[in-house]
């Protein structure tokens, strides 16, 4: 995802000299080409995320389209108030990009686990929040946030993610992408866990459970129409995210369902329960430990169906 983002951003920046890329001293080997080719549009501000975000706001207020780049919680939580007061309140054209959502940097410890960022960013006024599901969505999201004036947060994986989409799906911020639309169970997925959601669907289908999958890459604005539609056609909705179940996609979908006047299906929020990870390991390992492997997702869905007597 990281490389797909940098590739598309480089194309954008080549064509638009007002685009700037700021990094908080991260992106070794990844940003080198951009820096060499477009030195006037590249700025390593050092290990100083508060200043990076303030400088980005100043540049944006002077007419630049500014991308701030770092990993994990550094471009978000470390400088949260700068994002709120400087970027969001001034509606500044700043695009915050975090590499390594969820457990991408699993072995590095809890400082590098970005597992509450979506919930916190989603609560900020004026901020568009997107977390693409694969490389194709990453490229489309990068173009989309560039074309969307105002503050955006782009939450990405790290590298090595498979491409889920075989073609170029219709992409719009605020609209979920349907991958499979026939079924009694709806899996709503956000971010790089999409591949596991699709694998979980395959397992469920083999068990005779017809399952749809939607990539809910846009958390703010949320595709409320899609959720309403799915609530009418599904017996069970499961949200899947490599993120806390508090306040992320699961929380957002729960808010929508809770206020529906029509009958609604039960919801299962699959994600991380409150608390810090007490172990480390690579991303795949931690996904297994915390119930986000394809098998674990499928099991959660089947358990819920049994418990709720859904057939």
């Amino acid at each position, binding site marked *: 995802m990281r490389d797909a983002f940098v590739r598309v951003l480089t194309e954008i920046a080549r064509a638009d000299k007002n685009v700037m890329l700021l990094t908080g001293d991260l992106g070794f080997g990844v940003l080198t080409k951009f820096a060499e080719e477009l030195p006037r549009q590249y700025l390593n501000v050092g290990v100083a995320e*508060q200043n990076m975000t303030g400088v980005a706001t100043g540049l944006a207020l002077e007419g630049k389209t500014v991308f701030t780049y770092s990993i994990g919680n550094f471009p978000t939580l470390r400088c949260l108030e700068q994002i709120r007061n400087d970027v969001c309140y001034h509606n500044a054209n700043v695009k915050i990009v975090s590499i390594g959502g969820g457990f991408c940097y699993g072995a590095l410890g809890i400082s590098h686990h970005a597992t509450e960022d979506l919930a916190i960013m989603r609560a900020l006024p004026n901020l568009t929040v997107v977390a693409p599901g694969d490389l194709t969505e990453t490229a489309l999201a990068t173009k989309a946030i560039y074309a969307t004036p105002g503050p955006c947060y782009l939450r990405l994986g790290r590298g090595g993610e498979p491409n889920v989409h075989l073609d170029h799906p219709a992409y719009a911020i605020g609209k979920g992408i349907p991958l499979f639309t026939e079924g009694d169970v709806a899996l709503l997925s956000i971010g790089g866990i999409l591949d596991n959601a699709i694998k979980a669907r395959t397992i469920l289908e083999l068990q005779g459970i017809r399952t749809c999958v939607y990539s809910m890459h846009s958390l703010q604005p949320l595709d409320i129409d899609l959720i309403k539609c799915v609530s009418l056609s599904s017996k069970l909705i499961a949200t899947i995210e490599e993120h806390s179940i508090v306040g992320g996609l699961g929380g957002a979908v729960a808010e929508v369902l809770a206020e529906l006047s029509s009958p609604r299906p039960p919801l299962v929020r699959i994600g991380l329960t409150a608390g810090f990870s007490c172990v480390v390991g690579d991303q795949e390992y931690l996904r297994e430990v915390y119930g986000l492997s394809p098998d674990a997702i499928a099991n959660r869905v089947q358990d819920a169906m049994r418990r709720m007597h859904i057939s």
Partner: protein
Amino acid sequence: MLNHSIPEENQLDSNELALLIRKHTVLMTHRGKSSHIGSVLSMADIVAVLFRNILRKFPNDPCWPERDRFILSKGHAGAGIYAALAETGYFSIDLLEQHCRRGSKFCGHISHIGIPGVELSTGSLGHGLPVGAGMAYAGKLDNKFFRVFVLISDGECDEGSNWEAILFAAHHRLSNLIAIVDYNKIQSLASVEETLRLEPFAEKWRAFGWNVAEVDGHDHDALGICLDVTSVAGKAPTCIIAHTTKGKGVSFMENSVLWHYRSPQGEEFDAAMAELEITRDCESKMAD
């Protein structure tokens, strides 16, 4: 392009403007029952000299691309900037009455929304200098000649984000960036010396690579000379450490921690207004 000229006879000199800022803000904090009068009185002379003699900006074209940018980073003293903007023609002086009152957009910490001439909303400390550094960087990149002035407080220098920006501005040789410290030596609960020592203060800025000048923050002539940083082609940003007196101009508010938060009411309000009246007669120019 708009005609930016303002008839000379309509303009106040900086001493008159400073007095009006003080009078307006005593009234505003009285009516709005709001805090921070001491912080406004402390910076009133700096603001008056900037607005009257230094900043290249025009009230009839507040977004003029070549204007000097002015950021009040000590946003709690916003009342003083609202008063300066009103007195220099950005909006009607009558609007100052709304300060901190129900339904008003003139909030206690400076806000840009719906208020022409306010460059940046602040209120949480340590935000103005990084944003100003970004504006100055953009100015250099685009070969513009505007300057960016950021007024910060001494207590605000406790915030680490300032020191991130101080490193950044020196590294990138932002000679179009001027930080002014309103160094009144009193912060929210106690003196700077008791709370978190800044001295040797000028040496710190110098060691970070800034040009530093120290000035009496109530001496308009000296301020005028110091603040008129003309070179945007130089190699270092400038810090002006303005030595000031918190509460300056109202004797019982001077050098008092109390008036960081206290709102002038009753006899104290009458006494403050009386002191400002007798300091100099500007009654004819007050639109109160």
